[in-house]
């Protein structure tokens, strides 16, 4: 069942708009202890999200993006590193403080809309139930305001139970439930999975409305289109932030330890274990050269005066012979040694200082 998008969809709510919360992760490590062995889900995540930003966490299954979301929600405690959500230090906070944080400042949408809802309560009652975490809070919005923010305007829909709603509506209701207490940060895990295009667009529009209302939005998704529409994409690979995207452009990120995730197609050229010579060029680009290629040789495409020093957190593009697409792979720089490869790799001609995002 689909519902026509209300005219005021995405209009700011009547209640006071929330102050978006920024997110800062530094070297976040999380390990799942399993029987007989441990799995490192997050292996030193560095991430900065400014208040009011809309971010999509992309990455293959098992890369750690949902784990990162859980860490940001205070549902998992990192083994190492620092995590701050607004003023909350999630590493040092007690369970009670984390619960209060979720009750007031952080809204969480679990994967699968029905998992966020009590099936025996109506649409409006589900929102009210979510507000019971902070009884007596004076400034919380009314359920109808919250529901209108995500596109529930028709009065008749408010009395329906989740089972009677269309899948897209259920997902928007799940968003509304997470937004019940006007949080500064909304964390949504796969909010558009199992939805058709129309329903997906409704949900994305709702998320956009939430962001425009002042709430920082972090979404885990597999859908690149959703990522593009979120504005900023962060690709998680093997428990690390591997790349960032800006308006469709993808950049590798230099980690705090100087590491850079190479895009998959680059890794087909320089598989893990390849030795590269790293040379900064005067034009700001970095040249990574296998040992058998000399910088002065005709095959070397970049003049040495265009060298650039990439600092940790810088977003860079990389590709054989110039900017290209990204995929997993790590290159330590500076690095020299023996190796066999036919091409050099040039890292970004124009670095973005300090990983900043152009908005």
């Amino acid at each position: 069942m689909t519902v026509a998008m209300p005219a005021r969809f995405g209009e700011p709510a009547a209640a006071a708009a929330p102050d978006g919360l920024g997110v800062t992760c530094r070297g976040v490590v999380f390990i799942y202890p399993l029987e007989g062995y441990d799995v490192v889900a997050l292996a030193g995540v560095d991430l900065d999200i400014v208040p009011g930003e809309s971010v999509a966490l992309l990455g293959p299954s098992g890369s750690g993006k949902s784990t990162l979301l859980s860490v940001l929600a205070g549902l998992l405690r990192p083994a190492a590193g620092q995590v701050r959500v607004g003023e909350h230090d999630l590493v040092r906070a007690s369970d009670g403080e984390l619960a209060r944080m979720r009750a007031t400042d952080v809204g969480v949408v679990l994967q699968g809309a029905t998992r966020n809802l009590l099936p025996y309560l109506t649409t409006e009652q589900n929102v009210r139930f979510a507000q019971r975490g902070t009884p007596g809070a004076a400034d919380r919005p009314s359920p109808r305001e919250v529901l209108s923010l995500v596109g529930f305007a028709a009065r008749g829909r408010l009395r329906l139970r989740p089972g009677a709603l269309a899948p897209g509506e259920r997902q928007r209701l799940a968003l509304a439930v997470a937004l019940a207490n006007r949080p500064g940060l909304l964390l949504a895990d796969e909010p558009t999975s199992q939805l058709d295009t129309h329903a997906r667009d409704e949900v994305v529009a709702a998320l956009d409305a939430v962001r425009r209302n002042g709430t920082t939005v972090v979404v885990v998704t597999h859908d690149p289109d959703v990522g593009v529409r979120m504005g900023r994409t962060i690709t998680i690979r093997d428990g690390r932030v591997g790349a960032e995207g800006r308006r469709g452009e993808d950049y590798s990120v230099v980690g705090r330890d100087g590491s850079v995730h190479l895009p998959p197609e680059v890794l087909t050229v320089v598989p893990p274990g390849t030795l590269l010579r790293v040379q900064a060029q005067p034009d700001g680009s970095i040249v990574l050269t296998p040992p058998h290629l000399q910088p002065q040789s005709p095959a070397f495409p970049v003049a040495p005066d265009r060298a650039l020093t990439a600092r940790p957190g810088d977003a860079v593009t990389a590709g054989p012979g110039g900017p290209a697409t990204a995929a997993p792979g790590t290159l330590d720089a500076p690095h020299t040694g023996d190796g066999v490869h036919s091409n050099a790799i040039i890292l970004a001609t124009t670095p973005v200082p300090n990983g900043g995002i152009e908005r």
Partner: protein
Amino acid sequence: MTGWTVMVRGIRYRAGRSLVVLLLAAAATTAAVLAPAYTRAAQQSVLTDGLRNAPPSATALVAVAEGTADSAPAAHNATGDARALIKGSLARHPVLNGLVGTGVAGVDADTTIGSRSEPLAARLAYRDNVCANLRLEGECPIDSGQLLVSKRTAEAYGIKVGDGLDLRFANVPGGRAHVFEVVGLYTPIDQNAAYWGLAGYFAGGAGSPEASATRIDAVFTGDEDDVRLESAATVSMRLEYPLRAGEVQLGDVDRVHADLGAVDADLSVQELDLRTELPSILDEVSVDQRAIGRTVPIIAVPLVLLCWFVLFLIVASLVEERGPEIALAKLRGFPAGRAARFGLGEVLLLVVLAAPVGVVAGLGLVELAARSVLAEGTNVEVRWPVFAAAAGALLAAGLAALLAGRRTLRKPVLSLLRRVPARGRWQAGLAEGVVVALAAASLFAALGDRTAPLALLAPPLLAVVAGIAAGRLLGIWSRVRLTVARRRGRIPALLSAAQLARRPAAHRAVVVVTVAVALLAFAATAWDVAAQARRDHAVDTLGADRVYSVTAAHPDALIDAVHGADPSGSSMPVVRSAEQYNGAQVELIGLQAPLLANVVQWRDQNRDQVSGIAAALRPDSAVDPLELDGRVGVQVRVRAVGGGQARLGAIVSVPGEPPTTVSLGLLSRGTVTYSAAVPDCADGCRLIGLSVSRAGASTAPLAVDLDVREVRSGRGPLPARLEDRRAWRALPDRAPGARVVATPGTSLRLTASGVTRGDVVLAHLDAPEALPAVVAGRAPAEDERATEFSFPGFAQSPQPFEVVRRTTLLPRAGNHGLLFDLDYAVRAAEQTASLADSTQLRYEVWANANAPADLDRRLARAGVQVLRTQTMADELDRLGRRAPALGLWLYLLAGGAAVLLAIGVVLLSAYVGADGRRYELAALRVAGVRRRLLRRGVLREQLALLGMPLVVGFAVGVAGAILMLPGIPLVAVDTVQPEVRYEPGLGALPAAVAVSVVGLAFAVIVVLRTLRRATPDRLREDAR
């Protein structure tokens, strides 16, 4: 929206599961309430039965004064004085006063009526309202000097209404005659009615204290002063207050004891004795009451614990199922307390709502039991222990809910969302260890003393241990099966083994089903064994389908009355007495052997065996008695008579009279028929011998030689069997110093010579010299295994007995006694004495089921007063309401309830995990597994899940019964524990098997139907 709204909506959403939780919590409360409520009702039932079964005369309060005016002035005062005194005393004791009926005053004294030469002994009696209890011909006496005479007395002695009777008070020297007018003839409407008490007004025909007078029924006067006409007469004054047995409540008992003592003290001041057997009856009842008080809680505790455990399991499952919802609450920042309230609120609300439901159900169940099983008039009592038990159950249920939910509530959000199957924890292992240790302790206690409280918990504890073991075995077996099935590629076996191996709920369900089935099997076995023991006990106690305890003038009167009342031979007269020997009581039972097989019920003896015993007691070759009809004649050829004149006599036994010798005349040489009339023999008498005695005071040696050629009665010759050596025997001890020889032949030759002061007696042996007898237990002789011994018979004189059989039990006489033919015993006794005066003899009439239903009335019409009637059905009914039966009944109920609980657990386990199972099965169907294979897999799983505990449960239950039953009272707490024996039949055990199998099969069918909806649609996210 409030938390209540969420709770109520959640309950409605999970309506089926909520209903089951409500019912389980209610069941736990019901089980808890049952203990105090059923205990109270059962104790009340025992009290009511005990008082109702006791003779009214025993439970009545009787104030008695007896004596002359000098020795007992109260007896000679107006009954109104005593009545006022008692009324005043009772008024000060309202509890006792409320339990007794209106007092009936009676005053009586022994008198003789008629001429001095032929007096009749009669009791002159006054009794309140006597005419209302009599059928009258004539008037009711209202003035002094007026009498009522019984109709049968009047007919026997020619008394008519209007006659004047001279009446003299007995034992009053120089007493004068008082003339009374007979104003009416009476017949008692019901001479066995409680109104008459134990005064024995209708003992006409019985022996009288004055041997010369014949006892007639009491004569009633309408003026109590008539009884006190002579101050020297011994007057008995009684005020009888019947107890309203059905109204005595448990709470009254202590007060009644105290009040009886106080009233007794009040009356003794006025020289009145308070006579009642009420305190001892209450004491007897209290033995059963204490047994019930001990047994019921022990029975109820396992049921309560099982309910508690089941509730724990169910709540744990439900809360675990609600894990994602609780996770949502935590995800939305609910503080721990509020999240716990959200998680447990529904269950706790249901538990609280279940409490009143459980109380009402418990009280209703007890009321139902009271109406169907317990004594009439017993009702459930709503007292504080009921509510205390309910409160305790509520707290326990709440605690169970908290403990059950604690584990889930403490989980972090992501664990709750992940729903990883819970692993066994060390706490569960510890709990199982504690149960095993307790079971071992109770088993040890049971092997030492089966009556110890801990021992009584052995069956349920062993059942729990068996359940735990069965659960673990099932897990191991499933893992083995899983490996095998995986290797062989058998899908149904693989699916069922995988489910059983990985589901912890399966282990718990196995424990519950095993325990429940074991409890039911134990209860059913115990019930069947106890029912058999009750039947055995009833047969041992009664000996026949009906037993009437009666009064009779003497054994012959009883025999005549019974044969007159029931000519069909379906009933027989029985005479009993008891003798002490070597510190133990020996019961003597005389019954008519020819009727034995037709009437008696004798455990361990079938009809053929009983017939064999009867034949041994009274062989066909026995000598028949020589019945006379008023005259006796003996043809004798006297060969010689020396030493002076000799007189021939006939020794005759008239029923109820001592043997008398009727003189037939002086012997003279030649053949002469000597004859004479026999006094008091118009209704028949018996020739028991002949005698030759000296006619004068000569001391010369006696010399007699004669042939007895014929014996005759008035009707003609009698079969005297003069040729039979066993029929006649000379009794040399009657003529010490003489040589007496009897020689049978065509005529019986008697020779006697010598100097003796006694008579020469030739006894007719119509009874064997040694009575054939069946001996139960040790023979009452120095040699316990003696085949012949001498022991006091009915006449209280040594009687030789010959052992023809030995048994362990005699009907109605227990395991130490003698059983013999009544006719032989009476004939033997009446050789020397009259049995009419015997106070040792107890008379009974035993009847089979075909005997006339109105046999008691027929006996009454035949002059035998029925004092008490016992029937097999009543006895079984009475035993069925004794403490052991009432306890076992509750046990059976608890076992049934436990199986219902187990079925509920199986169903709920299926429901709780149904969504997940349907999802799995739907996925398997999508993966290509055929529906038929899935169905077979589920069926195999359920059969393994329920079949194993069914078998183990029954085995453990029956084994527990074999272990414990020898120590559990089966019939009554104050009797010797009977032999435990089980006779297969359509009893409780087969019914329990059937109920369990059908119930669990029903559960399997429901589970299969539940999982039938496992269609691929289930795989959609929004499919519920």
